[in-house]
Each structure stands twice: as structure tokens, then as C-alpha cells.
């Protein structure tokens, strides 16, 4: 499965490079390549395997000899392996019973001594930024 994927990616690169060389003058050239990146198959406890696929759009901007590359995740899919409809429904439903489920309710309890909550916005922002960067690095 991995082999097939690498071949496809190499094919795209081989097509892209001659185009880039031909326009290496001072002119601005923008190339975009969209490709799917499969994560490793992960064992989802006893339910089988899960594999995440990211669709990443790579934009290469060339001005003269200067080249910048930007990658952007455009979608995230979680196909289930083996790709069988009945089994994927089964897995999607059965992954929840490990956790108890309730409906969110607002409680006003005067006997509470301390409250656990998220820290300041700037800290949450750093958390979010970190997670985004981790995700991009993994893409």
C-alpha cells in the first residue's frame, strides 16, 4: 500500500519539476499540487484498524530563483480498514461504550470549594497554535 502511494507522489514531482525549470525567469509562477497523505494504520483496540487520510494542498510560488512552498490541509478523512461498510458502521458505534455519555447541564452549586477551568485566553491560544503546528508538521 505504501509503495503504491510513493509511486504516485513521485509521478507528480516528475511532472512538476520541468514546468518549474522552464519558467525560472523573473516571472512569477504558482504551482499547486493536491495530494492525499495516509497516516499509518493504527490498531483501534479490538475493533480493527483505523487509518487517517489528510488531503494537503501544496502551493509552490516561484519568482525568479526564489521559491516558497506552502502546505495547507484541506480535509481530513478517517477511512476504516478493511474498507467494508458493515464493519465501519460497527466500529463507529462501538467506539463510544468505553466512555459514559451525558448531556451538558449547567449546575449552580453553592457548596463548591474550587473550580477547575481553562486558563487565560493567551494560554489557550498557545495551546491551539501548538496543536495546529504539530498537525502541520505531521502532514
Amino acid at each position, binding site marked *: 500500500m505504501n509503495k503504491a502511494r510513493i509511486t504516485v507522489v513521485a509521478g507528480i514531482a516528475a511532472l512538476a519539476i520541468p514546468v518549474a525549470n522552464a519558467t525560472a525567469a523573473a516571472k512569477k509562477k504558482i504551482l499547486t499540487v493536491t495530494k492525499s497523505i495516509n497516516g499509518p494504520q493504527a490498531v*483501534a*483496540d479490538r475493533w480493527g484498524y*483505523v487509518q487517517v487520510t489528510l488531503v494537503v494542498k501544496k502551493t509552490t510560488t516561484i519568482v525568479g530563483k526564489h521559491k516558497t512552498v506552502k502546505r495547507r*490541509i484541506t480535509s*481530513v478523512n*478517517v477511512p476504516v480498514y478493511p474498507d467494508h461498510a458493515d464493519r465501519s458502521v460497527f466500529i463507529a458505534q462501538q*467506539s*463510544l461504550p*468505553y*466512555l*459514559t*455519555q*451525558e*448531556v*451538558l*447541564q*449547567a*449546575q*449552580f*452549586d453553592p*457548596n*463548591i*470549594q*474550587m*473550580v*477547575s*477551568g*481553562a*486558563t*487565560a*485566553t493567551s*494560554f*489557550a*491560544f*498557545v*495551546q*491551539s*497554535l*501548538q*496543536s*495546529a*503546528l*504539530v*498537525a502541520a*508538521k*505531521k502532514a
Partner: protein
Amino acid sequence: MGMPIVVEVRDGDVPDAVFDWFGQVDETFSTFKEGSEISWLRRGELGLDDACPDVRDVLHRCRELRAETEGWFDVDAVGLDPSGYVKGWSVDRAAAILEGAGAHEYAINAGGDIRTRGRWRIGIQHPREPQAVAKVVEADDVCIATSGGYERGQHVLDPFTRAGSAGILSVTVTGPELGTADAYATAAFAMGQRGVIDWTARLRGYEALTILADGRVLATPGFPAASRAARS
């Protein structure tokens, strides 16, 4: 670290050593102070081998936590910033100082992350109603850390989906160490809805409660309940 730290001791005074400790942590780990060891490390003016034992221990544990969270807790993602672990870790150490001074009934709250000894009644902040709590935990000797994007009504937007961290309002983690609980909560919040369900269900030694944007509250079976459920 720029956050309120509340120390409450029921069976004695709060020793000065606790406040000295938090001052020392700030001097060593602050990313805002140019003279902190972390700042020296960030600028490359200090090698890790020459850092003090506390800094080496913290960074070593952060590397382990990166592996335990499948890469979602990553102190190197925005320069070197171990603050997400240091807060809880420093509270764990402060608790040891209190224990050494003979305290057996205390709670330390550092910016919403709490470590207690004895029985305390703790609310988990409701992510949408500032005056309410979503859940009440009443337990002995607990560490509880919450990560979310709702403080003061501002939601942190995920740059990919433009939603609050991919369907999650907050994640609360309890367990034997506050530093680890805090790092786990941070990582789980970052994973997004799909990731958080699978990952928290596989946690060992720690329990998690996740509040989803669709109003569902998902908890691991061992998550500490309020007294009504626990005592009946």
C-alpha cells in the same frame, strides 16, 4: 507564569517555603524573563547538559509526554516552552513541601488546575455559562486539570476548521500527578473530537471528561463522581 495561585491549608498555616518555591519556578522557567534558564536555552546560550536538575527533569518528562500523547503535547512546537507541564509539576512539588510541613488537608489551585489532599468539592467550569459548573467532583486526594478555549467568552478557533478545537469545548483530566494530567488535558483538547474519544478511552491511570460542542459530555468510566452518586 502570570496566573493566580491559591493555596488553602485546613490543618495549619501555609509555609513560606511554598511561595518561595513558586517564585523560584518563575525565575527558572519563565519564557518572559530574559534571565531565566529557559530563556537561555531558547537563545542557545545554555546547553541542556549545563541546565539545573529541575530543568533537565522537566524537559525529559516533556519528551516522554510527547510520546505518550502521540505528539500532541509538544513543547518544541513554538520554540521551547514547557509552561504547559511546569504549572502542574510545580504544584506537585509544592504539595510535597506542604506534606513535609505536616499538612494533610489542603488544596492548591494554579490557574484552574488543582491538586488536593483530603476531601474537597470541586466544580468543573461550564464552558458556556461563566457562573455555572458542568460537573461536580467530590473526591479524596485528587489532581484535576482542565483545558479549553472558552475563558472570558472567547473561543479559540482552530485554523483548519474555524470551529472551537474541532468540536471540543473542554477536556478535564484527573489522576495521580497534576503535571501529567495538565499535559494530557492540553493534548486531548488539541486532538479534536475524533482523536479525543479514542485516546481518552485508552488512558491508563488517568480519567478524562470531555465536553463536546454538541452538548455531549463523555467520561471514562472511572471519572470521579459527585458525592450523591459516590455515597448512595
